């Protein structure tokens, strides 16, 4: 058994066939992950006790002939912005370096109830703000495909762990591309479900109208199963959707002939030539599968970055107000008054990118600027969502690049925030519209850097998205 290339199905087979116990697999997976973590720094913490307890539970169920659940024994990594009861959850921030959550996120609870084994918490940009994982107080993550390059962000640790083989699947979070972009950079599958498809209860809030939890995996099949387990209405998140969750795996049947796909011309303008070639190759593969690909237009795309960085920072400035030195462990040692204590704690605790976004968000919400920025951005958001609605009247799905370029070098963009923001251009639109979107590998550059193809569908049409992605993957689209 090769731990680094395990699939959910392979774990199930191995457990059912008594080839290994859940405890044996978990012990081996933890040891492997600890060793490999020296290379990438993908994990911040390992949750060994919790993992071994969960593994014993799976073994007991198996011994008693009970169903141990669809994720039984599967080693899972969880992004460190998702709370885990009793297991430190840092959000990649100095401010939460000692934070031990008193409850579990709903997604965490569901994946453990399904038999999943949480190996540990993965590194990420501080409070999920960043596109390179360089904004972590716990050090950058290295891309397993090229150690001098970023894994993408903000779910860089989750993507790197799955790519490196130190987890079979992982949970990430996506507000402006934080699952799809690192998935693309690390050559794995990353899924941002419909807004509300997965409960945000226990996901540390960044921008509440844009935040999603979603899976990262080495195959569409595994990503679909993980989403299956975590999706569905949760009374603890009033924005979680009370919509039926179809059997996603049942849709992985290769039936994509005749599907109408739109290729937005606004998403092809600024690609590096290699990314452009790989996307063109992917389109060719889809055409060979019988899909009908046509060019479409999403005219509001040019305004998406501006729209996103108004809304996301406004919401962030409000959400991050809670880190005030009172409830969350770290407090500045130097403070005479209450206000000083707040200011010093936040000034000492937040990293540069969080401060920049809090400043920007506070500015756009401040008296006299609300209409010019926030209200204006919300109107533009309507136009971006309308673009997609218009497109979906003509096509069944949209295919596009995830990022204009493959993984960049560590340090390359960190001093240029605007350049970093612009790199989110093709992923933020899906979040703004709240539609499901994903990245599936579509090949590598000459240097061996992975590139992802993005697939977007209508609200709640993840099943169609998975069917197309799976057919593409099965046709060798990732090679």
């Amino acid at each position: 058994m090769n731990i680094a290339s395990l699939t959910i199905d392979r774990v199930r087979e191995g457990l059912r066939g008594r080839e290994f116990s859940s405890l044996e697999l978990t012990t081996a997976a933890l040891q492997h992950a600890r060793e490999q973590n020296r290379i990438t720094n993908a994990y911040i913490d390992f949750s060994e006790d919790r993992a071994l307890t969960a593994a014993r539970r799976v073994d007991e169920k198996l011994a008693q002939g009970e169903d141990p659940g669809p994720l039984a024994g599967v080693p899972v990594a969880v992004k460190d912005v998702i709370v885990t009861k009793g297991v430190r959850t840092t959000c990649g921030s100095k401010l939460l370096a000692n934070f031990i959550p008193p409850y579990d996120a709903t997604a965490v609870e569901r994946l453990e109830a399904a038999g999943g084994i949480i190996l540990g918490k993965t590194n990420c940009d501080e409070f999920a703000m960043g596109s390179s994982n360089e904004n972590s107080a716990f050090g950058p993550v290295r891309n397993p495909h090229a150690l001098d390059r970023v894994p993408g962000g903000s779910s860089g640790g989750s993507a790197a762990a799955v790519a490196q083989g130190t987890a079979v699947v992982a949970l990430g979070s996506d507000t402006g591309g934080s699952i799809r972009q690192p998935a693309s950079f690390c050559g794995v599958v990353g899924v941002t479900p419909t807004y509300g498809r997965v409960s945000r209860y226990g996901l540390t809030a960044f921008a509440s109208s844009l935040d999603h939890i979603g899976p990262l995996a080495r195959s569409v099949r595994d990503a679909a199963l993980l989403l299956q387990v975590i999706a569905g209405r949760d009374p603890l998140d009033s924005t979680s959707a009370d919509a039926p969750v179809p059997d996603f795996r049942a849709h992985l049947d290769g039936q994509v002939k005749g599907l109408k796909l739109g290729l937005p011309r606004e998403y092809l303008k600024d690609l590096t030539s290699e990314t452009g070639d790989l996307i063109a190759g992917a389109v060719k593969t889809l055409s060979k599968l019988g899909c009908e690909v046509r060019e479409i237009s999403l005219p509001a795309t040019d305004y998406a970055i501006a729209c996103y960085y108004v809304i996301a920072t406004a919401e962030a400035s409000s959400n991050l107000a809670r880190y005030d030195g009172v409830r969350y462990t770290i407090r500045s040692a130097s403070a005479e008054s209450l206000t000083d204590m707040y200011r010093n704690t936040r000034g000492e605790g937040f990293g540069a990118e969080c401060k920049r976004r809090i400043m920007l968000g506070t500015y756009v919400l401040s008296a006299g600027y609300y209409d010019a920025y926030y209200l204006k951005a919300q109107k533009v958001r309507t136009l971006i969502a309308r673009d997609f609605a218009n497109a979906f009247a003509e096509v069944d799905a949209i295919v596009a690049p995830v990022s204009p370029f493959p993984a960049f070098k560590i340090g390359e963009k960190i001093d240029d925030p605007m350049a970093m923001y612009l790199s989110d251009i093709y992923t933020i639109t899906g979040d703004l519209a709240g539609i499901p979107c994903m990245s599936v590998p579509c090949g590598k550059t000459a240097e061996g850097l992975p590139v992802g193809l993005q697939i977007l569908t209508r609200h709640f049409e993840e099943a169609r998205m998975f069917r197309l992605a799976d057919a593409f993957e099965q046709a060798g689209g990732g090679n």
Partner: protein
Amino acid sequence: MKITEQQVRYVADLANLRLSDEEVRKFQADLDEILAHMDRLNEIDTSQVEPMTQVLYGAEETATLRADEPRPGLGTELALANAALAGSGYFKVPEVIKR
């Protein structure tokens, strides 16, 4: 300049963020560049457009209110477990009112 140094300091106060002089200069430059990009929003006519106040507006699925029934909460001990400073069942903060 879209934003002055004085405005940067004002916004930092609103956000309860202590910034060094160096940070003030850096953020003034950064915010200036980003706000200039955001001005692009003014190129697009939105006079006939409603703001998007809900992500799945009109979707029945999210129109949900639970029954207003009491449920157990975290409890004082757990709620205070991560406090920077706590005692006697309270969060402790620096003195607010001088005796």
